[in-house]
């Protein structure tokens, strides 16, 4: 019933703590123009826009897509703006893909961004609302207790998180777009970095970044005309569960497991670790890697940390994870999810440069948001399904 959808162009900005050289307009255009160039297309070749970003309070503009649409060739076109918290970049890509899959449009430009240096993202994240329990000590303070619970449940070695951070930061050195780069980084440096929210250390934490990501998605006809190899969308899935309810497992959320299950079923994947060649997943604090390895079914419960330990998730391992350096290296919140999806696509297209996993035929893009309650995922492959 659904049409095939292909990623025919990918673009992203140079991610940095403060892109003072561009306005929000300049930021999104940088990514969008690169995606168009990658697909050898012009603004007029695009039928619709799907824009994603996280809370508007981060930039101090209500519904900024309204003023940005012009800059993205949007006048006279349909434009949608998705917002599903941290997973938004992923959800945005899924909505864009569905426009092609539904046969509504032939070529869709999708852009996700965050310019956290404008307005004050940290303030927006921790606004103390009257009558409500505040988020004590930010996102780190929220997730650190969950990580402690994971360590206890899995009996995981305490330095697992350090190993993840080291790996992702080494990978980032191979990604020209990454925000945080620590040349020559060592295990000791990560281990000795200040403890922020025990057990999370400074170098195990994501940055706050300005950045944007864009993709051009097209149908089979558009893919045929594309200059580079396409990444075909095999499956997409989304799941939501309530933030807090009695008995909720926030460490290994069912929404994530169910989302992956549907995704694999649709993509014809029965053995995730074998059938998927590499993955870009949303890891804002290092320990989420082992946690998501279990949640995604790459490792049995309580054994996700073994994959890190064995080097399975390193660039040379059998299931490379976050070859781009991941969210730990660049975190423009609204774009982070789409960066995962786009990096997965570029792996399949053979366009990941220095952080390419050779021979990638199928890759997973994953994003999550809120209190680990929103999940968006996609599988892309080098052939239509």
């Amino acid at each position, binding site marked *: *019933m*659904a049409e095939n959808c292909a990623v025919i162009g990918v673009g992203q900005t140079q991610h940095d703590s403060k892109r003072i050289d561009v*306005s*929000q307009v300049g930021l999104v255009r940088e990514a969008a123009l690169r995606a168009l160039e990658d697909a050898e297309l012009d603004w007029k070749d695009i039928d619709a826009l799907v824009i994603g970003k*996280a*809370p*508007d*309070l*981060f*930039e*101090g*503009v*209500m*519904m*900024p897509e*309204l*003023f940005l*649409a*012009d800059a993205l060739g*949007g*006048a*006279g*076109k*349909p*434009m*949608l*703006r*998705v*917002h*599903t*918290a941290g997973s938004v970049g992923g959800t945005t890509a*899924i*909505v864009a893909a*569905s*426009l092609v*899959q*539904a*046969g*509504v449009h032939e070529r869709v430009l999708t852009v996700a961004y965050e310019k956290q240096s*404008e307005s004050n993202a940290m303030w*927006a*994240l921790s*606004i103390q*609302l009257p009558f409500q329990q505040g988020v004590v000590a930010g996102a780190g303070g929220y997730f650190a207790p969950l990580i402690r619970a994971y360590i206890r449940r899995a009996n995981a070695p305490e330095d697992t998180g350090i190993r993840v951070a080291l790996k992702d930061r080494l990978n980032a050195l191979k990604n020209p777009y990454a925000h945080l780069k620590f040349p020559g980084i060592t295990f000791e440096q990560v281990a000795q970095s200040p403890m922020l929210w025990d057990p999370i250390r400074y170098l195990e934490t994501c940055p706050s970044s300005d950045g944007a990501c864009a993709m051009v998605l097209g149908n089979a006809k558009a893919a045929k005309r594309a200059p580079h190899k396409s990444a075909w969308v095999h499956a*997409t*899935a*989304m*799941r*939501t*569960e*309530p*933030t807090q*309810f009695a008995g909720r497992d926030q460490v290994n*959320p*069912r*929404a994530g497991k*169910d989302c992956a299950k549907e995704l694999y079923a649709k993509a014809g994947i029965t053995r995730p670790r074998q059938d998927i060649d590499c993955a870009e997943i949303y890891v804002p604090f290092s320990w989420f890697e082992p946690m998501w390895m279990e949640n995604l079914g790459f490792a049995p419960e309580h054994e996700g940390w073994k994959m890190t330990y064995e080097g399975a998730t390193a660039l040379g391992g059998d299931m490379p994870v976050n070859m781009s350096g991941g969210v730990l290296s660049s975190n423009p919140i609204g774009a982070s999810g789409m960066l995962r999806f786009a990096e997965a696509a570029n792996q399949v297209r053979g366009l990941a440069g220095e952080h390419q996993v050779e021979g990638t035929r199928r890759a997973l893009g994953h994003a999550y948001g*809120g209190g680990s*309650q*929103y999940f968006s995922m996609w599988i892309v492959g080098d052939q239509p399904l």
Partner: protein
Amino acid sequence: MREVAVVSFAQTPYVRRERGRSEVEMLLPVIGQAIERSGIPKSEIGFTCSGSSDYIAGQAFAFVSAVDALGAWPPISESHVEMDGAWALYEAWVKIQCGHADSALVFAFGRASMGTLPETLTMQLDPYTLQPLGVDAVSLAALQARALLDAGLCTERDMAEVAMRSRRDAKRNAFAQLKGDYEVAKILSEPHLISPLRKHDCPPISDGAAAVVIAAGDLARSKCRRPAWIRGIDHRIEPHQPGFRDLTVSPSTTLAAHKAGAASAPLDLAELHAPFTHQELILRRALALPAAVRINPSGGPLAANPMMAAGLVRIGEAAQRIHDRDAGRALAHATQGHCLQQNLVCVLEGE
């Protein structure tokens, strides 16, 4: 294309200030009613999508608490747009077109009374060139009204008549907020609020929520006596800067209506999301609606204007008229952004 229909609609009574209930408490009965009326068990709804705005709610991630009203367990396939619920309906419609779901729950909510709406909407402007001017929503609308009057395309009397008709028709709508008999002459004798707009030309501030269930083909037919089929749905955006546009016309509405096939058969009624009286006149012209077409039998946004939901309510109201056999073919319109910057048109038909 799959056949998709609106099979149910529910809404809260709209009020100036909802003091008794939180968003979740407002949504709970509305979502419950929409699902119940759809005849589709909650567990079988394939997709959920909502529309809301953090700036209206005065907090980041405002939509997250709304999930509590869904009883999202086991986990559900769900998405959210930072747009009027009409666009959430569009996303859900696309989902069904892909075959990823056969039914969807769409809802939207807003408590504009929490803030000072015209000022909040100043934030909905280009932050580099327009926001710093501090121009509010009513002033921008007034600029548009002035352009329309100066072009000789309407008179203040025409505007007052829209106000009068809307609130008179709203008397028959149990959910409407502003209803009653107003005399055109009396309206015109009142001072301008922000010239050339008078208070009556402006929408009320409304708190409220609405929900709609849409379903595909045979599922819709099996559950709903008279589904309101979505024969066409399209949306378009125009340049943001008011100075870049001719504010007296709405080409995005015209284009969206064309793409949605609005004119392929006669319409019985049109629910237009025109928060200001002069905007209804612009839209009627943009849609080339014949005089026989009933406009806003619900009273429209001039009778109740729940931010982020008013567009979805137009679709719901139009669908309800079809469900009730009050109409055979209807057009519903939704708008976002100042001065009708972005517009959606949905054409509904009963069999």
